[in-house]
Each structure stands twice: as structure tokens, then as C-alpha cells.
């Protein structure tokens, strides 16, 4: 009982930290990695909340494929930045 409570608490903390970093990290790459990790931790949590099929789907699609999409985009954009000489820092209006 106590063990599972500690485990839940740890999961909750991990989820919060990763979500926070995915949104606020100054480095885009680290933000993406945090997001992927968030997806995996969520999958573990859902396993624990008796939703194994959702855990599978989240790990494969929510975390895996979305992460792959984000990383691919990040690479495309940083490639082009490198071509045009460094990244721009102008923010969207």
C-alpha cells in the first residue's frame, strides 16, 4: 500500500516536471525530449491505472510517432537555419 503510494507520488512528480520542461525548456531539443519522456511516463501511469491498451497506444503514437514528427521537424528547421546562417530569434507576433 505504502509502496504503491510512493510510486504514484513519484510518477506524479515526474509527469509534472516533464510537462513543465516540455513547455518551458529554453532548448527546443530538450523540450521535445521531455515531451517524449512525458509520453512514456504517462504510458507507465496508464498501465498502473489498469489501461494497458491505452498505455500501448500512447507509447507508440502519442509519444513515439509524435516525438518522431517533432524531431524530424526540428532537424529540418535547424538544417535550414544552418544554411541561412544561424537561427533567428524573432518571435511570432
Amino acid at each position, binding site marked *: 500500500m505504502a509502496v504503491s503510494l510512493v510510486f504514484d507520488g513519484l510518477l506524479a512528480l515526474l509527469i509534472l516536471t516533464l510537462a513543465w520542461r516540455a513547455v518551458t525548456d529554453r532548448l527546443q531539443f530538450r523540450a521535445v525530449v521531455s515531451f517524449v519522456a512525458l509520453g512514456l511516463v*504517462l504510458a507507465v501511469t496508464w498501465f498502473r491505472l489498469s489501461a494497458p491498451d491505452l498505455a500501448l497506444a500512447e507509447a507508440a503514437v502519442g509519444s513515439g510517432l509524435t516525438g518522431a*514528427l517533432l524531431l524530424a521537424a526540428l532537424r529540418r528547421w535547424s538544417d535550414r537555419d544552418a544554411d541561412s546562417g544561424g*537561427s*533567428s530569434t524573432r*518571435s511570432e507576433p
Partner: protein
Amino acid sequence: MNPAPATLFLLVGAAIFAIGLAGVFRDAGALRRIIAVNVMGSGVFLFLVAVADRSGGRPDPVPHAMVLTGIVVAVCATAVALTLADAVRGRGDQDPDGGGR
């Protein structure tokens, strides 16, 4: 059976939903906003899974189905958003991922 973990994760779901919401409304670049929208979505999904777990014993399959649908919708939206951000970038009219790196 034991409502404690369900309530905990309901709150955590609400919290990361809110974190994502802040990320969308902060003036940041496209990639960050796309991540933020996904974090928001993850918050709702976690909330729903916890709702399903509240029913005790066997989990409620209806929120589970909703989450499964939601995950697929989210990945589709992400793909469209990234492609669109790509197009905006390609035209050089507007920088979709400002914000530091």
C-alpha cells in the same frame, strides 16, 4: 476500490493541462506551441484515464475509448500543424519558431 490514486492523477492531469494552456498562450514559436498543445491533450487524456479508474474494480471502457480516439486525433493535428509551420517557414514570411534556442 481505492480512489486515492485516481484523485491524484485527476489533479496531475488538470495541472499539465494548465501548463500546456500557458504554453499555447505564451508568445513562443510554432514548435513550442505544438508541444504545448500536445501537453494540454496529454493532460486531458490522463484526466480521462483517471476518471475511468474511479469506477472501481473494472475500469470504465468509455473514457478509454475516448482517449484512444483523442490520441489519434492529436497526432493527426500535430502532423498538420508541423507541415503548416514548415510551409510558413519555407515562405520566409513569418518565423514560426522564434523563442530562444
